């Protein structure tokens, strides 16, 4: 009914957070001039952009699906379920269950991606152990 609104809201928040982190990273770079470190490591702002991509992309395609099924209208209140209290209650229940589950699953998958990339970076940065005796 309107489950995509939850991940879309999360996308708005993470996009704002990304902008703030990006600014902080730029400030840090100009202060310390640690270009070598930033080249080797993927900045957190870039990792946040992965989450933004998943959330915005997924929400956009889901919004299209809702439009396809006639659950979104181009006029107020935009969601057909919001026009009567019974449907609105069902819609809110779906947002609280499916919508939250979608946002949590996408965030968990992103967490896995961040963890994997951190491990790969650590592996590539750390010096190789010598096998010679």
């Amino acid at each position, binding site marked *: 009914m309107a*489950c995509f609104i939850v991940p879309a809201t999360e996308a708005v928040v993470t996009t704002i957070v990304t902008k703030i982190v990006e600014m902080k990273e730029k400030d840090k770079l100009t202060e310390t001039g640690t270009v070598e470190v930033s080249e080797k490591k993927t900045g957190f702002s870039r990792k946040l952009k992965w989450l933004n991509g*998943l959330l915005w992309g997924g929400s956009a*395609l*889901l919004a299209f699906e809702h439009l*396809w099924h006639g659950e979104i209208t181009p006029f107020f209140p935009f969601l057909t379920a919001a026009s009567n209290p019974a449907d609105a209650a069902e819609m809110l229940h779906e947002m609280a269950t*499916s919508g939250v589950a979608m946002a949590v699953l996408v965030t968990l998958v992103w967490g896995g991606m961040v963890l994997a990339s951190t491990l790969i970076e650590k592996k590539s940065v750390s010096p190789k152990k010598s096998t010679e005796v």
Partner: protein
Amino acid sequence: MTLLITIIAAVITTLIWYSSEKARELKVSMLVFMFWGASLMWLVDAAVEFIEIRAEYFTPAAADMLNDSFLGLSVIALALVIWVVALLIKDPKHVIAARLQGKSNS
């Protein structure tokens, strides 16, 4: 069916992104994120539906399957349109900028 089509699109675009430098330059990653994001979200929808109707989930009516397939293909078309528009706006290879400059110089 929509979930299945989107997952297949996500896997194909991921393989293209992984194997081609040119694809990475053309921001195929945008499509990868869109398809994986939508696949994860529809996976939750599918799980909820499966909990509600159990085995019936795997035997949809032919009309529903056709509608869902049509929706899946439309979703791919929409994602491709979004990607192309974003690509033309960002113009990573400066093709449009060069064309416009060439026109203004001549």
